[in-house]
């Protein structure tokens, strides 16, 4: 059952919707790729995490990437995001110096 008020979804419900085994979600947690919240002794994930988990599901089930690979990719994507932000800031700074 989805607990809307808490913005949580039980792992059981999540796995049933996405047709992935619970062990996959547990493994993601063990690799510190997602957080699991327990509500009334029921393990849940936050609704705000769904987008990220969907991505991890795609990595594993569509691209055949194992969990170690996903872990490495997740770290690299964080770095990519940081670097892209840095590029954006440097771009703005360059524009500042290029203007008359």
């Amino acid at each position: 059952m989805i607990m809307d008020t808490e913005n949580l979804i039980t792992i059981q419900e999540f796995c049933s919707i996405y047709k992935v085994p619970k062990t996959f979600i547990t493994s993601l947690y063990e690799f510190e790729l997602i957080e699991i919240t327990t509500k009334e002794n029921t393990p849940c994930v936050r609704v705000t995490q769904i987008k990220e988990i969907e991505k991890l599901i795609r990595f594993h089930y569509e691209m055949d990437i194992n969990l170690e690979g996903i872990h490495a990719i997740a770290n690299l994507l964080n770095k990519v995001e940081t670097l892209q932000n840095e590029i954006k800031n440097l771009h703005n700074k360059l524009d500042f110096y290029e203007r008359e």
Partner: protein
Amino acid sequence: MAYIDYYKILGVSKSATEQEIKKAYRKLARKYHPDLNPNDKEAEIKFKEINEANEVLSHPENRKKYDEHGKDWKHAEEFERTRQQQQESRHQQYSGGFDDSDFSDFFESMFGGARQRTSSAMFRGQDYNAELQLDLSEVYTSHKRTLTVNNKNIRIKIPAGIENGQVIKIPGYGGKGVNKGPNGDLYIKFNIVNNTNFKRNHDNLYTTVDLDLYKSLLGGDVTVNTFDGKVKLKVKPETQNGTQVKLKGKGFPVYKKDGQFGDLYITYNIKTPTNLTTKEKELFTELAKLR
């Protein structure tokens, strides 16, 4: 509408087996998948191409049609009939938030628009991305604006001080969720065009003000433009060319901090007089002798 060589796109020969096609597709998908190439438009285009190639070549019937009529697709009337009748399910392929417009005209012409695709939005709605171009002066104050995204009008507040290239997320304004799932989010990227006389570095603004020689030597008042009006400044005697003065709180609004502003930096550019009269030359010569 140009012919598309799907074999070339996947880098396989025309006699490639299903297994070889699958392998080539997976290899390319791992290289160009949008999840692995965030904010990379070229990779996104490439990914759509390989997805389309796979849609055709990994499906025996599609591949057969393509091999038989590919180059003559313009004249193959049966394609149109097939298009009307087409109801078969398609092979599962990689997802990533695409819609019907993601297939080429060539594909649409040959195989029609109807398809059953894997959607990334199995539960949570799809995220939407939009770009908004604004003048710098438009982001000096917070204001509301109505945007049309996917034929829906959305009224959003644009906070003052937003940066060029900044992306803001409007939660829940993406595609609708499925099975009580949450809606996706709307991401808006701001392209800020600066047509003003001010240079901007985050919250600070920079401008140059011309000073005549006499005012720079003897001091005086000068009226300068700030972003929201004019201010009168006292110029100190013997001001040097390139001197910078700071007007605290006269810069750009600080993003999401109401009432806080950066500073305005003014650089004086001293203009020496030209076309001197004989009298002026005499007087400057006198002055020069005094130094």
